[in-house]
């Protein structure tokens, strides 16, 4: 936590100047923000980006915090689900965090949820898309600022139909998020008369795609829809190009296929079409400002994970502001959070009853190493939140 110490000192200094001018000292205790993110291993990049975004937002919104100082507690989950309950319990009972932010990995989300559901703290999921989090396992104190895995993939079915694709092969890793994404696509695609001719589930985290791609080539479908993320997405897109499928069979994907990976994918990603709740080139002031300052501060382009972290920060700041800095009443805090309209780089969004974002899903394509927005594929799309009683 060397970084966070530095960060904390900077914040303390900033706060000090602010508090001098603010008339009310609402609460002397700092707001404790616990982070359960992967900072090493396969998901490390996602954890880094989320943290960067979150801290950036809270620094920018410092004025809204009513003089409350911030304290960050950051723990590397190593994306190991079996450790999740313990770390969550550490943040809850030992650090007594006011907010627990995390995780990236759906399995970890389930482990955290087991401990944090209905507890005296607010859990905000900045990435993991596992359906149950805002579905059957939803809870008043659990929010999600990212997406449910259903959301980004569902609109793609309609897009594919509009393009005239009838027979599609779908493919992803054989795990929760992947399967939920393929199901969501299939739901809208088959409803409109399309046919999924083959569904390929690759064992996670295998990245030897050649055999599968050869098979797809022999099927020669109208298009291919995939869910992959991170390193696997890089490898997949490169293989797809190297084996000559690109340009012959259109590649569609859940937007994570081209998030945080474009530099590594290089020209292989050009023209890949995806749906997601964000796009690099979204034409709004917030997004431009966000991208510029992110790049300036961290030396690399921002991606969806950074945006999700950023929005989490915005959400916290706005709720704290609304409550005048006093977050001791959990009911009030949950109400404030739930009613927040987050003015996000991805466009304004609100929260559903199940505490999942109601947001636009954009159709994007990769152009010159950027996710360029084509159109809004589904405006203000809400997750059906199946099984949630909230």
């Amino acid at each position, binding site marked *: *936590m*060397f*970084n966070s110490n530095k960060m904390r000192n900077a914040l303390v200094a900033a706060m000090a100047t602010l508090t001098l001018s603010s008339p009310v000292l609402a609460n002397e205790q700092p707001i404790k923000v616990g982070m359960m993110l992967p*900072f*090493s291993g396969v998901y490390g990049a996602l954890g880094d980006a989320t943290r960067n975004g979150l801290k950036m937002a809270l620094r920018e919104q410092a004025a809204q915090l009513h003089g409350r100082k911030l304290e960050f*507690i*950051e*723990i*590397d989950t190593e994306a*190991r*689900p*079996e450790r*999740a*309950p*313990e770390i969550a*319990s*550490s943040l*809850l*009972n*030992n650090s007594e965090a006011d907010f627990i932010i995390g995780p990236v990995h*759906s*399995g970890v*989300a*389930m*482990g955290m949820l*087991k*401990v944090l559901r209905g507890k005296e703290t607010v859990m905000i999921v900045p990435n993991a898309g*596992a359906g*149950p989090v805002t579905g059957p*396992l939803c809870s008043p104190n659990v929010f999600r600022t990212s997406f449910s895995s259903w959301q980004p993939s569902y609109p793609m079915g309609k897009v594919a139909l509009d393009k005239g694709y009838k027979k599609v092969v779908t493919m992803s890793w*054989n*795990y*929760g998020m992947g*399967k939920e994404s393929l199901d969501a696509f299939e739901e809208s695609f088959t409803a409109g008369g399309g046919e999924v001719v083959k569904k390929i589930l690759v*064992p*996670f985290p295998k990245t030897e795609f050649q055999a599968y791609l050869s098979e797809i080539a022999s099927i020669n479908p109208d298009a291919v829809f995939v869910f992959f993320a991170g390193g696997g997405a890089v490898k997949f897109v490169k293989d797809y190009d190297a084996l000559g499928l690109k340009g012959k069979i259109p590649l569609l994907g859940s937007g994570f296929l081209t998030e945080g990976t474009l530099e590594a994918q290089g020209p292989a990603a050009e023209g890949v079409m995806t749906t997601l709740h964000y796009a690099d080139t979204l034409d709004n002031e917030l997004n431009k400002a966000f991208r510029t300052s992110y790049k300036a501060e961290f030396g690399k382009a921002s991606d969806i994970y950074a945006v999700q972290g950023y929005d989490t920060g915005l959400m916290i700041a706005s709720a704290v502001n609304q409550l005048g800095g006093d977050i001791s009443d959990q009911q009030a805090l949950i109400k404030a959070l739930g009613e927040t309209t987050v003015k996000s780089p991805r466009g304004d969004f609100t929260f559903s009853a199940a505490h999942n974002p109601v947001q636009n899903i954009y159709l994007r394509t990769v152009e010159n190493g950027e996710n360029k927005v084509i159109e809004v594929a589904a405006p203000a799309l809400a997750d059906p939140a199946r099984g949630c009683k909230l």
Partner: protein
Amino acid sequence: MLFNKRTERIFFWVFFPLALLMPLFLAENTFFVSKLTSIMIFALFVMSLDYLVGRCGLITLGHAMFYGLGGYLFWMIAPEYEAVNFWVYTFYICMIAAAVALIIGFLVLRTSGIYMIMITLAFAQMAFYFFSDSIEFGGTDGLFIYVKPETSIFGLSFFDLDNPTHFYYLCLLSLFNTLIFFRILIRSRFGRVVDAIHENPGRTTALGYNIFVFRLMSYVIASALGAYAGYLFTLQYGFVNPSMLAWTTSGSALVMSILGGMGSIYGAILGTFVYEGLHYVLEHLTEHWMLFMGALIIAMVMVFKNGIAGSMEKLLEKRT
């Protein structure tokens, strides 16, 4: 005497009284009670591995299979909304795990050395993918378990598993029992043959022992206890996940066991507490905890020739 080494007795009389009193100091902080509980659960698991690797010379990289199995078995056999008895299910789970171990042991124990390491790994990976690929078992997201067993024996209930302190004492008791059990086992006539097989398998065969049967029995015992540890882990937070069966779980258990001092049994507790303690301190200190953890492990291999227990014994035992 159950503990024939001075170091062992000192450890015993320091650790258990301290562990017994610990919750009194930590009453304020339920997290540390839970943290210590989970370390003890893992120490129990490491201990069963230590018996297998250190006492029987059977090196396995698939022990986590039973750890995970303990968790999943409970989910499979426990009714969803009825109260179940902790002891009864302990018995069920250990028995089923033992039966599985009997079959797998029968196959893997034909090999030895590095080949055995790999074939145990192979079975563990199969089990891992079995659980992580199947929707019925929750896939990679794992499963929630809502049942909390009650712990009454003949109508008397000593532990309330919803209370972290009670659960702590249950796990401490389990760890204590396992340590005593292994000490009795090692001192027994069965233990004599196990020692003999470890030291000189060829000689032991020539004396007329069917060493395969002794190895198989040891494998079954250790596996059943490994499953018991997994069952306790599952009960602690009511959560099972295939990552419990991952080879990295076996790997870290092996590291803790070597660190503690192979074959010393009580070293398993030392190794687990030192490793987990360092991990906890380092990960709260720096996000680059891996660098320091790695360096410390390397340093410890260099310094402690026979693990922590071995080095302590060198210091504390009288020369004969």
